[in-house]
């Protein structure tokens, strides 16, 4: 863990094809036995907002430095925003939080 907070989004074949079409396939990393993941950056402030909006989620501070147990639909929405913005940076989470606050997710 290098201090950067992340959200892992698992990439299956269908999602990998969408990433390839968006020119983002290079952002998918091999993680485990053929499973790929794209890692979306989260700022400290964004982490606190996400944990407050989705109380079932947990921040794994000791091992992976990732936010886990986010609902599936949240992860789906974040993945779609990655495609839309062609990014896996904090701007994706900024846009997601805005949508949550506007009641669009």
């Amino acid at each position: 863990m290098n201090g950067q907070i992340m959200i892992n989004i698992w990439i299956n074949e269908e999602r990998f094809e969408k990433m390839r079409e968006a020119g983002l396939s290079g952002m998918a990393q091999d993680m485990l036995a053929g499973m790929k993941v794209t890692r979306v950056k989260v700022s400290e402030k964004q982490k606190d907002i996400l944990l407050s909006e989705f109380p079932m989620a947990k921040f794994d501070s000791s091992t992976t430095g990732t936010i886990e147990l986010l609902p599936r639909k949240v992860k789906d929405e974040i993945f779609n925003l990655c495609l839309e913005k062609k990014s896996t940076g904090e701007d994706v989470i900024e846009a997601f939080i805005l949508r949550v606050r506007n009641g669009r997710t």
Partner: protein
Amino acid sequence: MKLTGHGGKEVVERILPGGMAGSIISDMPELEVDTQTAHECIDIGYGFLSPLDGFMGSEEVDSVCEEMSLPDGTLWSIPITLEANDDTIRKKGFREGDEILLTYHRKPLAIMKTGEVFQLDADRVAGKIYGTSDPKHPGVRRTVSRKGKSISGKVILVGEPEFQPPFDRFWLTPRNHFSLYRDKGWEHVVAHQTRNVPHTAHEWPMKYCWFAANEDLSVEVPHTGVLVNAVIGEKRNGDYIDEAIILGQAELANAGYFRKDTFAVSFTLWDMRYAGPREAVHHAIMRTNLGCTHHMFGRDHAGVGDFYKPYDAHSLLKQVREQLNIKPVFMMENWFCPICSEVTSSGLCDHAATAQNFSGTLLRSMLIDGVQPTRQVMRPEVFQTVQAASDTYGFGSPFVTDSYLQNRGNVFKLADPRKEVSP
């Protein structure tokens, strides 16, 4: 058939013969017990905790804490006690020699002949058993939270619990386990303790341990089996739901990843203490009472957080090896090696720099995202079974949620023999 269990002692069932309970219990004072105690009553009644025939008194607790043995010298690592609050004991006036009806969900469970009523020094017990009094340790919290006084006494079940689907297909008493091995022709049985749905880093060690446990038995016809013995007990948010665990494990044989004549799935009612080394010894004892000859012990067996070193459990098991009637099979860390292209052990593979670790967190996150893992991570049939169990039993989740805790089906039900007695 004589069933030889832990300490070389016979495994004895302690259950009232059918039809007798109604008249015996009708006027007994009652004590409602919690889930942990109900599980332990059933375990004692069937012999999972042999040679225990009841809840421990202060001398036994002291002996377990200080010597890791029962007063007669038999190896024992975890105190088994029954707690009741002071008000209840005072109001009911329980005294030594009284027979009490233990009830669970207001249904008769067991008769206990009261022995000693004593004050358990929970902080001292926690320190001895868990090696810490840190309240962050879930076992410490469990022990310290059991307020009131402890009551010792021999127990006898008033009837047999009725296990509900899907658990009824996997419920085997110690006697049933011994019969199963005889029917399958197993001379050696290696136990796999689990609270997980199986991924390939569980499956591969089970296969490795099948070879290890087979030792020098002939292989033309299998004489060795793998027994997956799931632990079913108190659940916490985020744990796998029990139904997904047991059905997912069974799917390994249904889908042919194990032959049906070398693999079986059952469960034990037990509330994990996460006591690391001492709990590993306890697991060895319970599986001895199921007739197993070998037991798998992985890295950080029954540990939690950073409370124990990865191989502390192995060290303690080696220290008490002569007192165990079961042979531990020790395993190192497993990983997926992209160069070997297989799940392997850190004791065999020399590609540590590129090893990919199976972490519970990663697997959890795949299942929550609903993204089907590759077959090198989780067998597709297991994944489908877990997803189906989520829909059928888990309110849409393979993990324990508030909805599951509040609304899940019963693992077992108790009949009320008092209703069978004519007024």
